[in-house]
């Protein structure tokens, strides 16, 4: 999350008045960018990963661990590290060194929404050179070392998706009182958020637009001694500081659920995000579509979020919590009240799974699209008048159904078509599981696609493994011209399925049976062979026949050929292996890649546990655990310590071996 310019943010009632203007200027900026960049060709594959950390602070004497709110100090220390700057690293928002052309560039660090978070990215993007792939894991480790070196000795950067006791009493340091004016949360103080004016404004205006606080209800995991029905005992029904304190008295906290009431509970989660540069806009659109059905699969496979606010949850991943944490929909948009003032009903939060496909691909059947997709028709018309094709115009006209949340008064003076600020205002506050990113104006960057569903993993070995796996998948998709299309509604359904506890081994996901194309390559790459063009087009049967429910193991490792059906899904790992077999890969690289692919293979087949399962088992096996779903301070302390130890030893000392195997 990059920092936008400082200025005077409008409060929601003011921002609302100019929403139409911001949208319309954003669309003009988009058209200018698109006109400029639609012909960009032959950009190299460049890609980058983002690692997000929680900064924890140990209180050894009292066996407590808290979140440290020293993000700003740590970033300042990083930005003032001369050696780091000399090596090209630093904090881009403050100061960083020059990117080295032919040599190693030090990593860079960024602020995040949570004031207890830190984000680190490589100093320059990775390429597809296989040697580059081998640099990813050491670079991730280097990032963590640098981060740690700029922290206090009792602090440590861990990569758990969420802090197990965020929102419990005494969970942050320094301590601040809850119930501040911006978040109005009864669990976390306003100081939990990055103090840059953009962030508190974002939180406040989402709440304001919504007309009440955000509501996160996560089903509680029912253990032997869990009080039942479960009524979240931490909810305070007697607060009378803000009008929003009525929320809980109006039933915001649901029975048998863990209740949370602030953006920090969602946006304070750590993710593993990968961004790819495509060779041109067409390849970008194709990658966007083809990676989209993989989102829920990778979400379930990276599951790492079994605890919220000191309770074991009955879900394994963070996704829906973030979705609800930034859900700015009004009661009318939610369908709770008749439509009077608002423009439409909105089935999804602005943080949600993808809602449409965008590739001009002969294989994209109209049946895959959502017939009820909400779009702003005027905006779509403007884009089409500007020359954009229907599919892409539909995509942006869908993103632009939202209001801009943070508007700076200074930006409303003149429309600057050489900038992207108004476009980005909407684009960057639409958090779908993929993001299609036009080149920033004035840069030589190409069209990019961001893959956003994965949960952060405890070790850098795992984070490197999943990053590289996704990179290799994209290469296999483009090389074999793979087809993963299923109806977009099924992708959304899969996203829900991915939340189920232990979905990786208990659930089935809709997935396309035959990933090989029945049509020749789309024009542009133009390598269709005579055999393909002379073959009659395969008649398309019912869409429902194209996909079925598969386990994660089947999607990743392939369906066994025991069934008589000839179209067994080959599996993502075999597809990647097949791609690698077509490439010149040196033995050392192949061996390293095999370690990564082996981890993913075994996560999928159940040999190794997800972090979510491991954390659950850790809690259940802890001597202080009472069998009542409560994750107390002692357990939290030992769990975070264990996560740190696993980060360092990666299972070599036996701790975490259920997740990682016995590493050499």
């Amino acid at each position, binding site marked *: 999350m990059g920092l936008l310019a400082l200025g005077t943010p409008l409060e929601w009632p003011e921002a609302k008045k100019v929403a139409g203007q911001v949208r319309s200027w954003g669309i003009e900026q988009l058209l200018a960018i698109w006109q400029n960049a639609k012909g960009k060709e032959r950009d190299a594959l460049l890609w980058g990963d983002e690692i997000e950390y929680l900064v924890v602070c140990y209180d050894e004497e009292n066996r407590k661990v808290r979140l440290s709110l020293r993000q700003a100090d740590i970033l300042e220390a990083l930005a003032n590290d001369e050696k780091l700057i000399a090596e090209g690293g630093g904090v881009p928002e403050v100061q960083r060194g020059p990117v080295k052309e032919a040599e190693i560039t030090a990593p860079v660090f960024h602020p995040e929404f949570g004031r207890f978070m830190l984000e680190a990215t490589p100093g320059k993007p990775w390429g597809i050179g296989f040697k580059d792939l081998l640099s990813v894991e050491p670079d991730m480790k280097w990032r963590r070392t640098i981060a740690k070196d700029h922290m206090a000795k009792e602090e440590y950067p861990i990569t758990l998706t969420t802090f197990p006791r965020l929102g419990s009493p005494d969970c942050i340091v320094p301590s601040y009182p809850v119930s501040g004016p911006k978040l109005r949360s009864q669990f976390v103080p306003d100081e939990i958020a990055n103090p840059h004016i953009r962030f508190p404004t974002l939180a406040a205006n989402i709440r304001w637009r919504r007309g009440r606080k955000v509501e996160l209800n996560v089903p509680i995991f029912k253990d032997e001694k869990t009080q039942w029905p479960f009524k979240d005992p931490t909810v305070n029904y007697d607060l009378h500081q803000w009008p929003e304190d009525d929320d809980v008295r109006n039933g915001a906290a649901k029975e048998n659920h863990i209740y949370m009431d602030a953006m920090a509970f969602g946006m304070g989660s750590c993710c593993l995000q990968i961004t790819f540069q495509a060779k041109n806009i067409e390849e970008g659109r194709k990658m966007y579509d083809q990676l989209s059905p993989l989102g829920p699969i990778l979400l379930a496979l990276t599951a790492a979020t079994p605890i919220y606010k000191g309770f074991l949850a009955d879900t394994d991943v963070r996704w829906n919590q973030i979705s609800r944490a930034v859900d700015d929909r009004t009661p009318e948009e939610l369908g709770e009240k008749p439509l009077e003032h608002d423009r439409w009903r909105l089935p999804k939060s602005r943080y949600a799974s993808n809602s449409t496909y965008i590739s001009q691909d002969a294989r994209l059947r109209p049946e895959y699209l959502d017939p009820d997709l909400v779009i702003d028709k005027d905006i779509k018309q403007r884009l089409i008048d500007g020359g954009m094709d229907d599919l892409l115009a539909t995509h942006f006209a869908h993103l632009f159904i939202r209001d801009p949340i943070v508007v700076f008064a200074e930006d409303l003076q003149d429309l600057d078509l050489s900038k992207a600020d108004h476009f980005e205002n909407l684009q960057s506050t639409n958090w779908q599981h993929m993001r299609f990113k036009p080149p920033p104006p004035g840069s030589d960057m190409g069209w990019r696609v961001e893959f956003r569903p994965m949960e952060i993993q405890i070790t850098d070995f795992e984070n490197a493994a999943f990053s590289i796996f996704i990179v290799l998948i994209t290469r296999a998709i483009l090389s074999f011209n793979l087809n993963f299309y299923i109806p977009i509604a099924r992708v959304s359904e899969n996203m829900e399925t991915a939340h189920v506890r232990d979905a990786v081994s208990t659930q089935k996901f809709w997935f396309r049976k035959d990933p090989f194309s029945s049509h020749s390559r789309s024009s542009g790459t133009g390598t269709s*062979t005579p055999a393909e063009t002379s073959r009659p087009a395969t008649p398309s049967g019912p869409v429902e026949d194209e996909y079925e429910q598969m386990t994660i193991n089947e999607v990743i490792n392939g369906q066994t050929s025991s069934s008589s059906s000839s179209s067994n899904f080959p599996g993502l790992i*075999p597809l990647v292996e097949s791609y690698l077999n*077509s490439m010149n890969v040196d033995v050392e690289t192949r061996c390293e890649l095999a370690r990564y692919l082996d981890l993913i293979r075994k996560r999928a087949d159940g040999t190794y546990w997800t972090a979510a399962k491991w954390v659950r088992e850790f809690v259940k096996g802890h001597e202080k655990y009472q069998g009542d779903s409560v994750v107390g301070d002692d357990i939290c302390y030992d769990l975070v310590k264990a996560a740190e130890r696993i980060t360092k030893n990666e299972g070599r000392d036996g701790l975490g071996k259920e997740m990682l195997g016995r590493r050499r």
Partner: protein
Amino acid sequence: MKLILSTSNIMSGGPSVIRRHIFEKSNIELTSSLLANCTAHQSTPPISNTTNGTLPSKPSYKSWTTQQDSALWIPTHIASPLVEPREAYDITVKLFYLPNIPADRRCVQTREAIDLVLKELGASSIDLLIVSFPGMSFDADDEESDLDDPPSAPMSENDNEADAGDGAPEDIDTMLTTWRTLETLHSEGLVSKLGIAEFNVTKLEKFLSQTKVKPSVNQINVRDCCVVPKPLILYAKQQQIELLTHNDCTNVLPPGTLREILGSGDKGVGVLAREGETGDGVEKLKGDVEPQWVVKYTAVVKDRGVVESKGYFAVAELRD
């Protein structure tokens, strides 16, 4: 008569037969894609219904192959040149010399193979030419582990033949004679780098001492890539030879396999008549097929890591 079999580009829109086998050893990839390419060129798909025991009659081979000079193209072949400028690609060619074929033919064969690939890709040079000498395998365990692999259709009965029966590796001098041809191609600028496959340290030492152009690459089977002996790694590094992985089997095209592909059995494409077959009205060729060589080519867009084109040519002699 010379038979030139081709797969076309096997990367995109893989025909149905490839689907199950694309992930197996290169031999399966080769045989399935040869079959599939022929099938695609026949107007009616032949392998459709074998349950009732009767085979649908296949179209005459003449309708989907092309006779050109003394060679028969199976199937009819049209080149599909690369789209982007030549410098965008890394073109790797692996030439498999087959067992029991006299080594003195290799000079001509090598030129012929390079020529086919260059025409196919519309290029004037290749980046890396790897040659695979018959009977070479990286170590003795290799063959055993091969046999442990579950046999896989459709060429199951030939699977063992693919790995066994390929004769003993030839001596270094024979290989060096072949290498002179490659060195010439290198000096002509047709090939930028040369490579070999499955050489251990002993063989490498003997070989290198007598080469003018050193191999830049030594390919090792992917199964063994995590147990490459340290001495080889060190020696290769010292000699600046890159150790690359592959998943090809040693003898990619045994005569029996080719006979089956071209033959009139249920897995064949019906070019060759069965032993003693008088013909069911459809014209067929007769005689013994002798595979001469196989070449695999791969064109990768360098800075994107995308395999744009990959395929095989296999050349055989048909003798009465």
